[in-house]
Every structure is written in structure tokens, then in C-alpha cells.
């Protein structure tokens, strides 16, 4: 059996961050990627937040192939024929050190793979891992992971970093984590629509190179957990929908998921933005939304879990994160494996430093802080009642009718009493304190 120091399953952001760090430490590392190239199977519905990861591999980010630095954040609450948008712009969002960038995964991940290869990592595309090899398991214990089987080949390693992505097929087959459940998962799907850079900058009122991020909640998902999004890339935009799987299953009259995106694009506030664009790609991906309660044990004899495979993602409604967690967990995985190798102990005890490091970093701290969110956002009133009520109230404030108008305060009071002064709203507010 061929042997290396470390096998990385999956050439996404977590796996490549691990491989880059390990190769830089002089370890022999092999990344097995089932796609034709790194990024071939990846989809982002968003952006990469930089501040959490800037200090990790600081030499990398200056030349990374980002799309646009996000200068403006918008959230639209959509009601019936009326919508209300909150727009936030800050000089600091896209200043000297932008806080977040949009990116496209096929391009970005290939660049990252090249960087890891330059450090000495072996990147093997077109290679699907079929099984994690174990020894000494039984009685419900997973045993030691000693390598992988891919096709007819077996490859041994002191440590296997499982960064296989959100479905976690290999890890769950080996009993290292649970299979994803509908209640803790969402479906994201999008179109990448090509538009000239100048058109994007005109339509979104952006300076050259700057970008916008825009989230939509309410009627776009027909009140189901989730929402719509638009992110501007250099010469394209990503337009998509995220919808909770359990919410889809609980619909009284089920709608085909793909239709939600067509409906979204036809909305009067979206149609002019995508007009004249050329749809270049259609993609879909599952998203782990269970939060810290669904994060499995992250290490054991001979293995670590990283990135989406470890459930490291966080949807906090206004901010949606995953790629920064993936890179940080890959970074910590590399450090932990390098230290364990040096100490000559890649057992569960030797690798425990990985989870410890993640507990001390923003990764598990932020997930812990947001522990309550996955259950809070199961409340359908957040996605149906409130976007409607806010839009209705805002619309009434800006309306002049044929009859004499009441005082503004009275209009506001009437709307507030109708839609916000209820026991249900108080209960919802009480639950939101844990956001």
C-alpha cells in the first residue's frame, strides 16, 4: 500500500487550506478531488469574510482571484406587491482592507490548489474516495482511520483529513458523523448571469471594482425559511434562492423548488437588474444549517473533519458564513497534524489539539454564540408575517389618498397595532434576544 503523511479528502477550501499548510511544513500531503479540477463541484451563495482569516496565510490574499469587494449590504423584506429595503454602506466595508469579497469557486479553488501545489502538495483530480479504511473498530467504535480506498487503490496515511463537503458521505458511512437531516439542511441554487462590468457598476451604483450583496426575505420563498440573494461578481452576477429542506417538506401545497428562482427573477425589483444578461451556469448545493448542536466530534484516531463535512457553517439571516470557517478549520487541521507528527502521536490524544484550537478560535466560538439561531429561524412568521407587515406599514406611511390624511403618528400606530402588538410578536421578540 502506498503511504503518505497525510491524505486530504476533497479539494475545496477546507481541504486546500489544510494541504497548503501541511506542504509548507514539509509534510507529504495528497489531496484527492473527485471533480475534473478543484472547485468543479463547488457552489457559493455568497462571499468570503476576510477579517476572520486575514492573519492565517497572510501572504495568500493579496493576489487571490476575488471578484468584487462588497461595499454595500442590502436586505429587502418582501410583501404582497410592496417591499422595504434596508441598505447599509460604509467606507470601511470596501476600504483599504475590504471586509468581504464575492468570488466564484471554480476559479478561486483552482488558484488555491495551484498555491498548495507550489508548496509541494500533490493535488489529484478525477479521484473519488470510496471508503475510509479503518482498523481496530467494532462495538460501536470507529477504530483508527488508516487511509482511504479510491477505485481499486488503497493509500495509507498517518492522518486523513476528511474535507469531503456538506453531505459527509464517507464520514457518516464510517460512523464519524450523522447523515444530514432535512431539519438541519437547506438547498441553495443559483444562476450565474453575465453582464459587462460597467453595466453592473451602473445598475448597482458602484465604484470600479466594488460590489454589492443583497438578500431578500418574504414572499420569495413563499414564507419558507430562506430567501433570495444577488451578489455582484466582476463580469457576472450570482442570483439565487436558499430554502430550508424541512420547510419545503412541510408545504401544504408543494411548489417545485426550481420555480422559486424563476419567480424571484421575474419580480419587478429584480427583472431590471438581470435584464439583457446571459445566463451562463445553473448550480445547486446543500447547506448545513444545524449550527453547533450538529457539529460532530471533529477528531479521532488518525482523522480530522474540516469545513462543511464538519457542519461548520452559520446562517444568521443578515450574515451567511461558511467559507471563512472552512479555511480556518483547514488551517488549524494543518497545524494540528504537523504538531502531532512532530510529537509522534497521531492518535485521538495527539489530534485533540485540533478541536481545542477551533474552540479557542472564532470558528466554534461564533457557532456557540449562535447556538439558538437554527431553532429560532424555524418560526415561519419571520419569513411571512414580518416582511409583509413591515412593507405594509412602510407603504401606508408613504401613501396620500383622496380623503384627508390622518396624522403620521396615527397611521404608524394603526399599522403597528394591527401587525405588531400581539402576544405572538412579543413571543417572537423574546426568542430573538438569543440571536
Amino acid at each position, binding site marked *: 500500500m502506498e503511504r503518505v503523511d497525510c491524505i486530504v479528502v476533497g479539494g475545496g477550501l477546507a481541504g486546500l487550506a489544510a494541504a497548503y499548510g501541511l506542504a509548507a511544513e514539509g509534510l507529504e500531503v495528497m489531496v484527492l478531488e473527485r471533480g475534473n479540477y478543484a472547485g468543479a463541484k463547488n457552489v457559493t451563495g455568497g462571499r468570503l469574510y476576510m477579517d476572520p482569516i486575514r492573519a492565517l496565510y497572510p501572504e495568500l490574499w493579496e493576489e487571490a482571484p476575488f471578484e468584487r469587494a462588497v461595499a454595500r449590504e442590502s436586505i429587502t423584506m418582501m410583501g404582497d406587491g410592496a417591499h422595504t429595503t434596508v441598505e447599509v454602506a460604509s467606507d470601511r466595508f470596501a476600504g483599504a482592507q475590504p471586509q468581504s469579497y464575492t468570488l466564484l469557486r471554480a476559479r478561486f479553488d483552482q488558484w488555491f490548489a495551484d498555491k498548495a501545489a507550489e508548496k509541494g502538495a500533490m493535488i489529484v483530480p478525477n479521484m*473519488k474516495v470510496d471508503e475510509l479504511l479503518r482498523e481496530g473498530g467494532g462495538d460501536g467504535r470507529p477504530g483508527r482511520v488508516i487511509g482511504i480506498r479510491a477505485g481499486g487503490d488503497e493509500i495509507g496515511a498517518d492522518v486523513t483529513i476528511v474535507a469531503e463537503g456538506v453531505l459527509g458521505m464517507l464520514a457518516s458511512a464510517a460512523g464519524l458523523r450523522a447523515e444530514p437531516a432535512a431539519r438541519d439542511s437547506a438547498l441553495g441554487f443559483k444562476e450565474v448571469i453575465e453582464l459587462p462590468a460597467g453595466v453592473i457598476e451602473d445598475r448597482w451604483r458602484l465604484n470600479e471594482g466594488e460590489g454589492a450583496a443583497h438578500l431578500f426575505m418574504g414572499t420569495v420563498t413563499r414564507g419558507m425559511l430562506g430567501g433570495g440573494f444577488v451578489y455582484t461578481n466582476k463580469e457576472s452576477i450570482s442570483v439565487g434562492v436558499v430554502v430550508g429542506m424541512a420547510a419545503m417538506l412541510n408545504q401544504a401545497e408543494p411548489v417545485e423548488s426550481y420555480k422559486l428562482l424563476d419567480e424571484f427573477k421575474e419580480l419587478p425589483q429584480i427583472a431590471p437588474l438581470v435584464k439583457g444578461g446571459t445566463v451562463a451556469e*445553473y448550480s445547486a448545493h*446543500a447547506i448545513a444549517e444545524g449550527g453547533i448542536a450538529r457539529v460532530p466530534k471533529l477528531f479521532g484516531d488518525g482523522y480530522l473533519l474540516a469545513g462543511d463535512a464538519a457542519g461548520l457553517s452559520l446562517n444568521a439571516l443578515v450574515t451567511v458564513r461558511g467559507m471563512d470557517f472552512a479555511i480556518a478549520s483547514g488551517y488549524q487541521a494543518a497545524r494540528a497534524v504537523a504538531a502531532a507528527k512532530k510529537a509522534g502521536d497521531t492518535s485521538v490524544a495527539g489530534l485533540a489539539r485540533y478541536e481545542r484550537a477551533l474552540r479557542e478560535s472564532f470558528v466554534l466560538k461564533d457557532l456557540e454564540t449562535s447556538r439558538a439561531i437554527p431553532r429560532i429561524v424555524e418560526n415561519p412568521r419571520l419569513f411571512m408575517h414580518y416582511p409583509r407587515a413591515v412593507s405594509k406599514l412602510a407603504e401606508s406611511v408613504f401613501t396620500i389618498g383622496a380623503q384627508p390624511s390622518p396624522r403620521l403618528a396615527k397611521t404608524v400606530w394603526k399599522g403597528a397595532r394591527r401587525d405588531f402588538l400581539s402576544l405572538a410578536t412579543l413571543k417572537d421578540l423574546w426568542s430573538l434576544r438569543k440571536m
Partner: protein
Amino acid sequence: MNIDAKLGLDVFKLDKEPQIVVKNEICSTVCVNRACLYVCPADLFELDDQQRIVVNWEGCLECGTCMICCEKDALEWRYPRGEFGVQYRMS
């Protein structure tokens, strides 16, 4: 643009064997919800003239939503072999 046209924009390398197999003996006996017919973002599942579920797996985007949502474990689902399946150029 209909869903087939959207899938036509993507690059697929087709494997010889299906990556999704429907166990209709389960679907036709214990499944009421038939979620696969509406959760798939590529709309790959449909009923044939005998009301059996068929899947046009060739257009699979590999998101796994059907597998996660199938409450009766009636889908045999796996990733295509290495080098096969959808190959995103942007996403």
C-alpha cells in the same frame, strides 16, 4: 428559460451507471409525500404512465437534496465516479 435549458448550460461528463436509483417498491407502498417530485432543483424526478417514479439522473447537480428529503430511504444515491458528473466552470 426553462429548467432543461438551464441544465443545458452546464458541463456534464456522463458516467455509464446511474448515480441515483429509485426503489419504487418503497415509493409505491409507503411514501405519501413524494418529495423528490418537487424538492430537486433540477426537476429530475417525474412519474411514468404507471405512476412509478423515474429519475433523469444525467442532469444531476449532486446537491443531495433528494436523498436528504426522502423520508423513506427509497433512493440509492451516490456521487458519480471520479471525473464524471457535473463540472462547474464558475459557481
